[in-house]
């Protein structure tokens, strides 16, 4: 092997290593927050169905729950909202200032009046949030790693969507999720720990 060939080989090998490293950096999942929990959630600023604006920056010190749904939902959304309503009622005074944000994945149909009627028929602590466009919806869904997809039906469309209830702590960090399959006792103990966490 002559010197030129050796140099060529070294250069190509370096390029391969660099390409692999770059690929890893680009494709690797987002870094952990240091608590061992992958980052879920992030800053948002969205119009609420009651006419106010909810800015996650203003929620520091206030743990909250967040759910993606839509009012044309068969039974997952009403069931989840009914369950968390029951949980909040069961927690009594402890949950007095707790908020549940219902982010509509169907802002085309869920206007402020409809969404306010809907969440209001469960509990006044459930607040509808309405992304003003596809970009706002995509951004908050991405930060919560939630999925939503419009699917055609014979008469119109429906929305596939992530149906977990996200729990966010007083520092705005992801705390866990609530699941319909869990017993009320388990969900309520999670909520109690979330509200007590400082």
């Amino acid at each position: 092997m002559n010197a030129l060939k050796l140099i060529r080989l070294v250069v190509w090998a370096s390029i391969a290593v660099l390409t692999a490293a770059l690929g890893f950096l680009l494709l690797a999942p987002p870094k952990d927050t240091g608590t061992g929990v992958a980052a879920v959630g992030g800053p948002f600023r969205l119009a609420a169905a009651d006419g106010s604006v909810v800015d996650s920056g203003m929620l520091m010190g206030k743990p909250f729950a967040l759910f993606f749904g839509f009012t044309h939902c068969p039974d997952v959304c009403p069931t989840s909202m009914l369950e968390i309503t029951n949980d909040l009622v069961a927690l009594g005074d402890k949950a007095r200032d707790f908020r549940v944000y219902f982010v509509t994945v169907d802002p085309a149909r869920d206007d402020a009046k409809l969404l306010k009627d809907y969440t209001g028929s469960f509990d006044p602590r459930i607040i509808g949030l309405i992304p003003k466009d596809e970009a706002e919806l995509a951004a908050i869904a991405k930060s919560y790693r939630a999925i939503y997809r419009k699917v055609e039906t014979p008469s119109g469309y429906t929305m596939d969507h992530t149906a977990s209830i996200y729990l966010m702590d007083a520092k705005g960090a992801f705390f866990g999720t609530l699941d319909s399959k869990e017993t009320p006792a388990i969900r309520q103990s999670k909520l109690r720990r979330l509200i007590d966490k400082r």
Partner: protein
Amino acid sequence: MTKTSLLRALAAASLLALAAPAAAHDFKVGDLKIDHPWARATPGGAKVGGGFMKITNTGTQPDRLIGGSAEISAIFEVHEMKMEGNVMKMRALEKGLEIKPGQIVELKPGGYHVMFIDLRNPLKEGDTVKGHLVFEKAGKVDVEYKIESRASTGGTGHDAHSGHGTKAP
């Protein structure tokens, strides 16, 4: 048997015949038995609702639920809902819902349902909603849906909600 007692017996029998279907809340068409159609009360503003029931095929031929209507909605579709991981997915069953011979197919929350789309009024607990179902072979049958609480899981017609400490306000 005297004439009077015969009349009395006939009257009693016809009363029973009238009372029985209402009490059991089931409906029949051909070889199909439709047990306890029901729906949940809808939240404020909701434009859709799901209808549930149990369908038993006592015959020897498969049949399909392919459509129907309900007096409270403009549109009626046969749907399937399922969870894939944490993602809720709902699809219209374009070929209808098959009920094989000897099979009992249950339409229930979280699974198969008929969907009332563009509700004219909210579904209110305690109400009864008239409608009909259309099967590919057995044809058309009138049914009535009992509207139960938002927490109901159906079953007996009673409010069978499980484990919820408190009702929604």
